[in-house]
């Protein structure tokens, strides 16, 4: 038995019917073709599937699509605009804060939430807040630098 879902994804209303066991990540990737949301561990640990739900970071691998009923989901595909890259994308690019890019969409969700909360540009706080996102390439240093710059601290 399928469930009928209505939610907003990157500002657009989506009406879709899906098997209840579909996770939000699988809905985004397999049903909506938004493959920028990456699946690493599928158990909540790596953070690569992190998206924003009603503006708050959430693991899309641990949320059933059905539980996202009526909510507003923002993914990496919703960031860049006609006029160019999003400031988070610019900063990560400028500071070489990504290599393979697998973890990057998840980091962006975490950083966007920090920016909207007005988190202090303090390295210890930033490192703690980023600790839920694993990156196997960069060693984190440049990600921390880019994030500090975005939060208004000196890079």
């Amino acid at each position: 038995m399928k469930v009928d879902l209505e939610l907003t994804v990157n500002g657009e209303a989506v009406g879709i019917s899906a098997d209840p066991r579909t996770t939000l990540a699988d809905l985004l990737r397999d049903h909506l073709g938004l493959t920028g949301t990456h699946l690493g561990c599928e158990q909540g640990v790596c953070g690569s599937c992190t998206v924003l739900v009603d503006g708050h970071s959430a693991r899309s691998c641990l949320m059933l699509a059905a539980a996202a009923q009526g909510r507003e989901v923002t993914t990496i595909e919703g960031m860049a605009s006609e006029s160019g890259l999003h400031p988070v994308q610019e900063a990560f690019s400028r500071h070489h804060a990504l290599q393979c890019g697998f973890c990057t969409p998840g980091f962006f969700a975490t950083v966007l939430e920090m920016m909207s909360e007005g988190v202090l540009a303090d390295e210890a706080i930033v490192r703690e807040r980023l600790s839920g996102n694993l990156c196997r390439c960069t060693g984190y240093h440049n990600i921390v630098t880019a994030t500090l710059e975005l939060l208004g601290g000196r890079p």
Partner: protein
Amino acid sequence: MKPAAFVYERPSSIAEAVQLLSEADGEAKVLAGGQSLVPLMAFRLVSPSMLVDIGAIAELGDIDSGPDTIRIGAGVTHRRAELALGPVIPLVAVGLRELGHVAIRNVGTVGGSLAHADPASEWGALALALDASISVTGPAGERSVGADRFFLDWMQPDLMPGEIVTGLHIPKPSSMRWGFVEIARRRGDFALAGAAVNLGVADGVIATARVGILGGGVTPLRAHTLEAALTGMDLVGAAEVAEAVDADVDPLDDQHGPARYKRRLARVVCERAIRQAAEAA
């Protein structure tokens, strides 16, 4: 890594949820934040035939602050509780900051943590240290259980089939000295050991002591022996009796280390948490 098929229900009231659960004969499970249940289902460690999603039940989402108690609805997320209770009971906020990461705390709920009853649950240790009680509604009506009677055994809360946790009631402390310390392998991991300490102090002497331990055995537990040792002591220097916790814990061997190592950690976290309580201005 994908869950087996199930029937999905999304009731809008507690009564409706209880009815769905009781009619489903124990095959159904409550879905709250899914931060523990969805991975268990993805690994196929559990395969319920029905999920009753309590996420749309508005009455579970409130935080009410009364004159003597704070009631946190079962559906309140860890993150909301952390932010709302920070100014009132800082022990809760500081303890919750050790629970997973913000993205987990944004979705996981108070009721889900209590019902999951992991021995390393911060909520478990906090509820014990704060003398909180848990309200439960089921086919036979409502009841309230003290936190120190709620955790029965390994991942086994005091819940009958069809019962759901509806809230956590924390008595408002008039004045307290507190400490919270935990040790985990990595930031956000489940703790190897942790302690939540709540001391009532008069004229520099500890009048009442409540200590909740996480990672000390098969459930979150109260350190009765340590509490007795602390009672009547001068606050300054009280950390010296931390090793009394030895009699309270019975840690398990697992892939993270042998029991004797975790026994040692229990002493360390208690000592540090008591010192934190003593040093707080």
